């Protein structure tokens, strides 16, 4: 067990990938000499060379498009998109190419490309630097979408994502980047596409991922003082979602609240609510509720605390659920 920040965990995880898999590459804007604007790739170019840690031109479509070509050549690119809000110029290469080429090729081409995206708000940033675009990618057949909420998951999930042969969009909650946590560097303990029950409880289930796991845990702790026993599940994989633990939890608690930063409308929370209701209809004592970003563009940073789901809004939703 070692204590490290999520940034360090990702850095160490990438190091192991680069050491163990000679075909792996890291590519993106400023990932080389600078070590990335968040320093996730710090020191990698020094240790693995400029041929493997590639500072690319400032063009996101180009980053993903050429990563696809490199993967066709047998490489295993790990791309960095500098911030959530800058992934959109690459959208065609992501959804029409990366997601579809393996199927188009009748399975003859596999594209083991990982796309790392620092995401989410809460860091006082300017526009386009606080978005949560995960629903776009979860809705896209052919991609897998995961997100880590703590250093241990960051360390292992990046390695697991890089080890697979499917394209993975890998969301990193930037407001958790500096928070430290214990990392067991010997054993992963859990598979990439599995949800994890972070806290057991019987009153209701809080379902969160990435940056909101911490919010949910804090809410559960606050609720415990009021005698409420909340279960918290970290989805970890957003597409596919690991449904069984959710079904089991909701069958136990009868109530669920989903928490994410992205706007609620047609978001991950909608899918979770719809599916849970389909499968656990007779167990639910209240509708699955959602606590999410509002359906407006991410606001100026001085308003972000009002925009983001927080402890109070989560507890309020739990109360509303219990009123049913």
């Amino acid at each position: 067990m070692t204590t490290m920040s999520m940034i360090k965990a990702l850095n160490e995880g990438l190091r192991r990938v680069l050491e163990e898999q000679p075909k792996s590459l890291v590519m993106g804007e400023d990932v080389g000499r600078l070590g990335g604007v968040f320093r996730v790739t710090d020191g990698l170019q020094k240790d693995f060379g400029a041929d493997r840690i590639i500072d690319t031109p400032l063009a996101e479509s180009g980053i993903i498009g050429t990563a696809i070509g490199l993967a066709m050549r047998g490489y295993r690119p790990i791309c960095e998109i500098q911030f959530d809000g800058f992934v959109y110029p690459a959208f065609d290469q992501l959804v029409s190419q990366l997601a579809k080429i393996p199927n188009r090729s009748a399975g003859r081409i596999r594209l083991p490309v990982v796309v790392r995206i620092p995401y989410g708000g809460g860091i006082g940033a300017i526009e386009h630097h606080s978005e949560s675009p995960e629903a776009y990618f979860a809705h896209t057949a052919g991609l897998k979408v995961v997100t880590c909420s703590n250093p241990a998951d960051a360390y292992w999930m990046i390695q697991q994502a890089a080890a697979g042969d499917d394209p993975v969009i890998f969301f990193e909650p930037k407001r958790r980047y500096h928070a430290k946590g214990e990392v067991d560097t010997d054993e992963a303990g859990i598979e990439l596409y599995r949800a994890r029950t972070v806290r057991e409880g019987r009153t209701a289930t809080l379902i969160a991922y990435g940056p909101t796991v911490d919010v949910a845990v804090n809410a559960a702790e606050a609720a415990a003082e009021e005698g409420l026993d909340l279960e918290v599940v970290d989805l970890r994989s957003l597409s596919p979602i690991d449904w069984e633990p959710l079904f089991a939890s909701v069958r136990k608690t009868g109530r669920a609240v989903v928490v994410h930063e992205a706007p609620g409308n047609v978001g991950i929370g909608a899918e979770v609510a719809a599916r849970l209701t389909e499968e656990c209809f007779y167990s639910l004592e209240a509708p699955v509720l959602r606590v999410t970003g509002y359906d407006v563009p991410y606001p100026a940073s001085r308003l972000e605390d009002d925009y983001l789901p927080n402890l109070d809004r989560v507890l309020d939703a739990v109360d509303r659920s219990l009123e049913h």
Partner: protein
Amino acid sequence: MGDTQRPAKKTAKSRPKPASTNEPQFVQLLSPEGTRVKHPDYHLDLTDDEYRGLYRDLVITRELDAQGTALQRQGQLGLWPSLLGQEAAQVGSGRALKPQDTVFPAYRELGVQWCRGIDLISAFALFRGTDLGGRDTVGDRFNMYAIVIASQTLHAAGYAMGVAMDGAVGGEDGEAVIVYHGDGATSEGDFNEALIWAGVFNSPLVFFCQNNQYAISETNARQFRLPPYRRAEGFGVPGIFVDGNDVLATFAVTRDALDRARRGEGPSLIEAYTYRMQPHTTSDDATRYRDEAELDFWRAKDPIVRYRKWLAAEGLADEAYFAAVDTEAGEQVRALRARVMALTDPEVSEMFDNVYAEMPQSIAAQRAEAVEFQASLDDAAEGSDLR
């Protein structure tokens, strides 16, 4: 200029001379009238068999393509994008490739595919709708057709980066990569990003632009002020302008560009000036945007007619040879046609099987549901037959 990288080597070929006065300033080795033209930079010295082979390729390409159009008209294909008129651009460039080279086509490259010796059925299956065009593209060194305009130029740029990273360039045996695209494709961001990538990483990539004068109904005037080969020069990527209806010139400039790429001298762009004699696809009505006079103008530049004249005049081939090629083309067409008609519909399960290397449980469940649902309908249909 700080550390701005300059192109490794300027390959400023002297500006070519047009053979006849109404021709633009492109590289030409064979005039529309079928006479050989000298060019200061490009010489060709093929064997008699190779010269004859080009004719065979041109004719067979044209016939197979015509069969695509016919099959579509007969309801056997959903769509066909004809290359009629562009045979020389495709055969000239396609035959210039060495076995180790890799091709990234757009969607009209049947002639290149033929030259690479790759089973053409994949193109017909794609346009019949029985699959999405998948083949063993890595083994074939010929990628799938690309429908999203210019998207393949970035794939090619990445692949070519990988070739260089593999150390597979640097000599006469080096690998080169060629990517095909149209005049319209040059307007897309992706194409321009691909030029940047190829330039910055000095990749062994040849952009082969078939400027067939149209992007569906839109003329060159809607896509650019300066022709694509000039654009490339602005990116620091040598641009070569060639008569795309001249199979010899296309062969010569492509071989040259590929050789520079394989030697590690970086990317270039060839603009093959040609014309799409058919509508954009079988769904298009070209009479809405162009007239017979324009077609006549280009008919006079037919790539096969001129080449045949020259072969005959040089004594490289005679009527018997031409007749034999026609016969062979007919056989190819018949064989292919039979195989197209035999292409059957895929199984429902196939839409699920190849999406992921590791199929998620949810997809497996949907697959089972779809297969079962299909079976229940079949049962019901059978049931109703029995009644």
